[in-house]
């Protein structure tokens, strides 16, 4: 990576606490265009919380967010979407009882000149996008509830890329998927990367994301242990960062690094 460029996203010294517990404590991460950064850590390490601040689901207590070097104010999911930040949540966050097209456009429905929903146009666009992602997908008229895990995942991903996202956040994108569907998501991530989209991959399982990521950022107990380029470190070294907070020589240590090292 050419580190001289302006990062697409920079989260600086972010802190948030819930009832006295520092879920995220003075954490800083960044992301460049066309780059995949894996955010790793145990369950409860604070990675999902940190990323939810970026996607507008939580409000930070301290710190700042810069997009293309400009400080921005994100206080709800709509603000985040306004900056081209799209999120695919671990829980998929789809409305089970409505169909794929309704989910793709949820909150941003297409409307006819009369102000009514343009369902036909939405379905047409949904067919187009889904055709690109998952050509076997045909169940446009059914509630999402009736779909398989992989199909629901493609609906969630389609929703994120439908609106020209520049920054994509994927929280455990392959947790609910079989091997074939996981491979599909991997292909998709590479394709999106070529289009210059910056992607945060969040996972507690290093094997899911190591091959896809350009860099890893590791969190532990709400703090950033360190950053490293995947070509500079081994999986075992990253595991050491996750479990012990031990920072290998080629990685950059953060505030959460083991002090004795």
């Amino acid at each position: 990576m050419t580190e001289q460029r302006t990062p697409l996203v920079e989260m600086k010294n972010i802190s948030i606490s819930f009832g006295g517990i520092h879920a995220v404590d003075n954490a800083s991460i960044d992301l460049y265009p066309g780059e995949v950064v894996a955010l790793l850590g145990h369950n409860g390490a604070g990675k999902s919380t940190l990323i939810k601040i970026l996607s507008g689901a939580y409000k930070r207590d301290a710190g700042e967010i810069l997009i293309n070097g400009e400080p921005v104010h994100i206080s709800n999911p709509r603000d985040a979407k306004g900056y081209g930040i799209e999120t695919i949540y671990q829980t998929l966050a789809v409305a089970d009882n409505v169909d794929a097209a309704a989910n793709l456009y949820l909150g941003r429905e297409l409307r006819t000149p009369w102000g009514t929903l343009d369902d036909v146009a939405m379905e047409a666009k949904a067919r187009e996008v889904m055709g690109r992602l998952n050509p076997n997908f045909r169940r446009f008229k059914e509630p999402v509830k009736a779909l398989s895990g992989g199909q629901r995942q493609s609906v969630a991903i389609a929703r994120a890329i439908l609106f020209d996202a520049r920054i994509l956040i994927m929280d455990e994108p392959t947790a609910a998927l079989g091997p074939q569907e996981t491979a599909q998501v991997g292909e998709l991530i590479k394709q999106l990367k070529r289009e210059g989209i910056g992607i945060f991959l969040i996972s507690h399982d290093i094997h899911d994301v190591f091959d896809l990521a350009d860099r890893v950022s590791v969190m532990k107990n709400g703090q950033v242990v360190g950053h490293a380029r995947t070509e500079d470190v081994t999986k075992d070294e990253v595991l050491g960062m996750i479990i012990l907070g031990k920072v290998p020589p080629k990685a950059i240590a953060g505030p959460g690094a083991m002090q004795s090292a």
Partner: protein
Amino acid sequence: MAKTTIAAPSSSVRQTQGTALQRFLQATEIDTRLLGMIGALLIIWLGFQLTTGGLFGGLFLTPRNLWNLTVQAASVSVMATGMVLVIVTRNIDLSVGSILGFVGMIMAITQAKILPPLIGFDNPATWIIALAVGIALGTAIGAFQGMIIAFLNVPAFIVTLGGLLVWRAGAFLVISGATVAPMDTKFRLMGGGAEGSIGATASWIVGVLACLVIVASIINSRKQRKRFGFPLRPMWAEYFLSTVGCVTVMIAVWVLNSYYMPVNLAKKYAEANNIPWPEGGLQIPLGIAIPVLMAVGIAIAMSFLTTRTRFGRYVFAIGGNPEAAELAGIKTRWVTVRIFALMGALCAIAAAISTARLNAATNAQGTLDELYTIAAAVIGGTSLAGGMGTISGAVLGAIVMQSLQSGMVLLRIDTPLQSIVIGIVLVMAVWLDTVYRGRAK
């Protein structure tokens, strides 16, 4: 959207597999749940017809009974359309009966006590002012309860349980328990009756217009689907649906037009219009009652709101997954406030219908209506778990409830026994629905 359609075929060409019935349902895209409900309703009607004097001599399927049935179901079905939205978003509104009582009382006081000294007795604007005051008040009450639910996070059950007590007592307090009567003559038209009906000619016109709308919407939907090259219904299915729709509308109009003014009213009418009283009496068809027209209009408007607008889409999305809706950027709290405000406005319209029908407002008006309203919505397929329900189902549910009541009155069944039957039917209907949904998965 909320319709449970038959599993879509996995190819873009419509498959021709399964039995003839399956193919038929698939081609016409008829909602099988709704079909089942219509079937149940017809069975209930036929049952009462047979038990009240046989297929041809029965008292149930007479123009008179059916006409009354439509008028009696109007008030609850107006409220049931709003209750669908409330229940779809996993809330409940127990206060609708009390809001009806309170708002009805305020509307009555407005037109009987406040307005006459100001603008004179029988002023043509009286009914409009009274209705506007009622709708504004109902909306305000609903919005207020909605805000407590959405922004103070008090469960809807509790807020509206409080509302049930508060507004009922309010209806008593504002006039110390007195009954307010009579209503303004124009306001009274909203209650139906001989004067509050539109007559034969106008009813036929309404029927023809309804048919034109049905055909136009079928043509339009086909055009839209063609524009984007989506699979189309076969032509015979389009013709079938248009025909069934139009024939149903026309039969309904014909039945309502076959109910004639009772003799003494007809005599008064003849005198008032200087028509000589003929030998065999005058047969003046009543046609569609105004409250029924209002209820149908509201049902259509509410269907449109739930299926064609952004607001309706949000209501269902919130019901399906509140967290996802919030993360998608929907202002879920404001949607909740708007739903309850809308519910309040519908209570006011229902209050206008029922006070006009009674020609008086009492503090007990609408007692237990919350339960009938919820029952109508639930019998109509609205799921208490949220996310599912249709306006047409709720209206059908209201008609089912009213049919049971009217039928049992015709059979001279005692009131307590009527309640027992309705209670049992409610539980059975929901059980059957659960079984159906279990199968559909």
